[in-house]
């Protein structure tokens, strides 16, 4: 037995203490939360045994109802009951109008161009509505697991853009969840399948949910899940099948398409029921008001054919982007409730030339995979053989506006994240002292066809002749797929940077107000909560530094460096016993600073050791 437990970076010194972390599938139609317990990942159920929470939120003047009872009220109280809010995440009012459907809400513009929904409880942004769903899932998890969560992995469609991802992260923050990682839904599904079946090789994940479609191509190699390409449509899903049936009904019944909110909901509910019936039966009765007709599966297939075709086109593109052939793919996995539609299964089987896998419940597979990743990220899998590693990509190219309204790509789509890339630009006028940096996302050449993510200005460039200034713009995308951009004039060193806050995101003011509201609603003592968070952060840092000193202190630190670190640690320990949150926070920062160089040396040493270890193995072979 080893006398000393050598801790890996980031590992807590008590490896047997399990840290509670969950995976959350925040879906358009349904949401669920899963966790790994006794080595098995499974969704968590409520008291009645139900694992699925319909993504429906109903607002009353003084309280909120989430899930099945809210969904049931969709037609009786359409203005205060929000369904499919995911389709509104990270979108502007203009986008919402272009979603091509009537939504039964009263929309109001916010300070940030975000569509706010006017309810009996006041204006609600899509972020707040999502946070209400997440809060219910968090409470369910804490009740089931019996403790506070260290964090959650929340899944997003792979094809979500920066604004949609940021909105999801904001929602988690509002719900009091610490986000360990935003994980792409198809990648999560691949984890659930890959680990289950010990798969190796190329795998395609076809994920058709309520409102979004993703296709991802992955290479699985010994626990490493490498996404080669991803594609999709963040506005294509089972909801569109419902709308197609509803449109057909309006046409057949000869009724006006200008329906009031209650009628709209009733029509969509009838359409959805017909769609589900056609999965099992070749024909179904559809009734709306006094009107009744039968709809056959063949008719339904014809209605949805354009949408199915769109999804297949995205599949072919992803295969091309991955620079492989369709025949190279060893398995196709079906994810999302809409893959139950027989026509969808048949079309996918035909394209890939093999029967798709449906062994794991398509409604649960994403949450199950996310829970496995959450368990890994929380450090619970360490030391148990090869750890799982996910290497994901950005779904859409990122770039800048250049002269003539053109988009210049800085990072092309399907680049592995994290990534940092810089590009140099120059001034085009003599004496120009400022430059507008307009950040865009998309594949088209004209900026008007791309999504505008942010604009900021680099000011204070010293006057020079045109073309003399050297402005380096750096894009960095983190492991959540979130972008930050900085710009620097190299001759003078003038700098400007932003964490991209999408044009359609919430402003900081809006977030602050919502946080305040949510604390009041939840009856939580904000001060106590903040203090607890600071203590947890401080404790985590102390444990990490202790483990690091034990492992590498001798090797990588001079005696005086070590003494300085230990002095700061002692001071932090003393402060933690008290309740001065600010002092704890400041001392945590100080300890971080004083251990900065040590941390960098350790990471370098890790990389060297990885190579050395590899060489040894090769010699042995």
């Amino acid at each position: 037995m080893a006398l000393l437990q050598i801790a890996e970076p980031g590992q807590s010194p008590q490896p047997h203490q399990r840290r509670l972390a969950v995976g959350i599938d925040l879906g358009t139609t349904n949401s669920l939360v899963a966790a790994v317990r006794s080595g098995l990942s499974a969704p968590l159920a409520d008291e009645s045994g139900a694992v699925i929470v319909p993504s429906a939120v109903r607002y009353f003047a003084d309280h909120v109802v989430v899930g099945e009872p809210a969904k049931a009220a969709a037609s009786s109280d359409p203005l205060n009951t929000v369904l499919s809010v995911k389709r509104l995440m990270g979108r502007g009012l203009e986008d919402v109008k272009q979603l091509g459907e009537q939504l039964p809400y009263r929309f109001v513009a916010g300070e940030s161009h975000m569509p706010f929904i006017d309810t009996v409880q006041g204006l609600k942004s899509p972020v707040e509505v999502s946070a209400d769903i997440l809060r219910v899932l968090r409470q369910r998890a804490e009740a089931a697991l019996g403790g506070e969560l260290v964090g959650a992995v929340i899944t997003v469609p792979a094809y979500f853009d920066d604004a949609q991802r940021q909105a999801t992260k904001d929602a988690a923050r509002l719900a009091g969840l610490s986000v360990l990682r935003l994980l792409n839904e198809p990648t999560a599904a691949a984890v659930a399948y890959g680990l289950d079946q010990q798969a190796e090789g190329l795998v395609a994940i076809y994920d058709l949910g309520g409102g979004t479609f993703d296709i991802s191509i992955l290479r699985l190699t010994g626990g490493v899940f490498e996404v080669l390409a991803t594609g999709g449509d963040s506005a294509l899903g089972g909801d569109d099948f419902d709308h197609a049936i509803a449109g057909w009904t309006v046409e057949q019944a000869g009724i006006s398409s200008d329906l009031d909110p209650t009628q709209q909901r009733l029509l969509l509910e009838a359409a959805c029921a017909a769609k589900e019936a056609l999965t099992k039966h070749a024909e179904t009765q559809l009734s709306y008001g006094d009107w009744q007709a039968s709809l056959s599966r063949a008719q339904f297939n014809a209605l949805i054919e354009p949408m199915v075709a769109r999804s297949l086109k995205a599949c072919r593109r992803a295969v091309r982007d991955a620079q492989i052939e369709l025949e190279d793919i060893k398995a196709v996995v079906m994810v999302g409730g809409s893959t139950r539609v027989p026509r969808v299964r048949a079309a996918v089987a035909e394209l890939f030339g093999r029967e798709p896998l449906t062994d794991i419940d398509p409604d649960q597979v994403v949450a199950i995979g996310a829970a496995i990743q959450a368990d890994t990220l929380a450090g619970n899998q360490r030391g148990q053989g090869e750890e799982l590693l996910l290497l994901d990509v950005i779904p859409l190219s990122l770039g800048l506006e250049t002269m003539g309204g053109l988009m210049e790509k800085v990072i092309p789509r399907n680049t592995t994240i994290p990534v940092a890339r810089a590009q140099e630009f120059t001034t085009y006028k003599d004496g120009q002292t400022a430059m507008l940096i307009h950040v865009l996302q998309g594949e088209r050449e004209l900026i008007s066809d791309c999504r505008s993510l942010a604009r900021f200005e680099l000011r204070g460039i010293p006057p020079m002749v045109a073309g003399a200034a050297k402005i380096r713009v750096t894009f960095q995308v983190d492991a959540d797929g979130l972008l930050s951009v900085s710009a620097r004039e190299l001759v003078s060193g003038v700098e400007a940077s932003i964490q991209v806050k999408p044009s359609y995101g919430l402003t900081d003011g809006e977030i602050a107000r919502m946080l305040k509201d949510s604390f009041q609603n939840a009856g939580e003592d904000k001060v106590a909560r903040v203090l607890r968070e600071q203590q947890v952060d401080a404790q985590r840092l102390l444990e990490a530094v202790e483990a690091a000193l034990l492992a590498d202190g001798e090797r990588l630190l001079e005696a005086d460096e070590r003494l300085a670190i230990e002095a700061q640690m002692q001071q932090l320990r003393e402060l933690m016993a008290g309740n001065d949150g600010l002092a704890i926070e400041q001392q945590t920062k100080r300890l971080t600073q004083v251990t900065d160089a040590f941390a960098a040396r350790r990471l370098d040493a890790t990389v060297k050791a990885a190579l050395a270890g590899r060489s040894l193995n090769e010699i042995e072979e």
Partner: protein
Amino acid sequence: MGSPCHFALFDLQPDFRVDLDLLAARYRELARHVHPDRFADAAEREQRLALEQSAQLNEAYQVLRSAPQRARYLLTLRGAELPLEVTVQDGEFLLQQMHWREELEDLQDSADLAGVASFKRRLKAAQDELNESFAVCWDDPQQREQAERLMRRMQFLDKLSFEVRQLEERLDD
């Protein structure tokens, strides 16, 4: 922290001929150690460092696994800076380029899928041939100019294969 040579990062000697499977295996192994997922519960500083190292690793991997980018990188290791866009004095290739492009346009007009497939095969063969030629001359200072010319040809064919993929997408309607 300076950025080490891309080849050294993977414990490889700078060379154009690279065992891509070995490179991929080493990439995965290194990624296991520096990926931010390993530091999800660590302090913010460790997360930032992991982000930087991981981005650097991804960049190096991306450059080394692509033949034109690897070629370009080798030449910059051996000598002066290479501007991205230059007027290439390569008359013979210029003519060839025009042929490639005209053919691609014809394929678009005729929406000839079989023709596109055959074009891709020939393009691949031309790329393989260029890679071979580059591999034997890049390290010889006497043939530096030739190596640079070959590298630029590789870049062009790479761009062309991207355009073929775009064409395939347009034809896929």
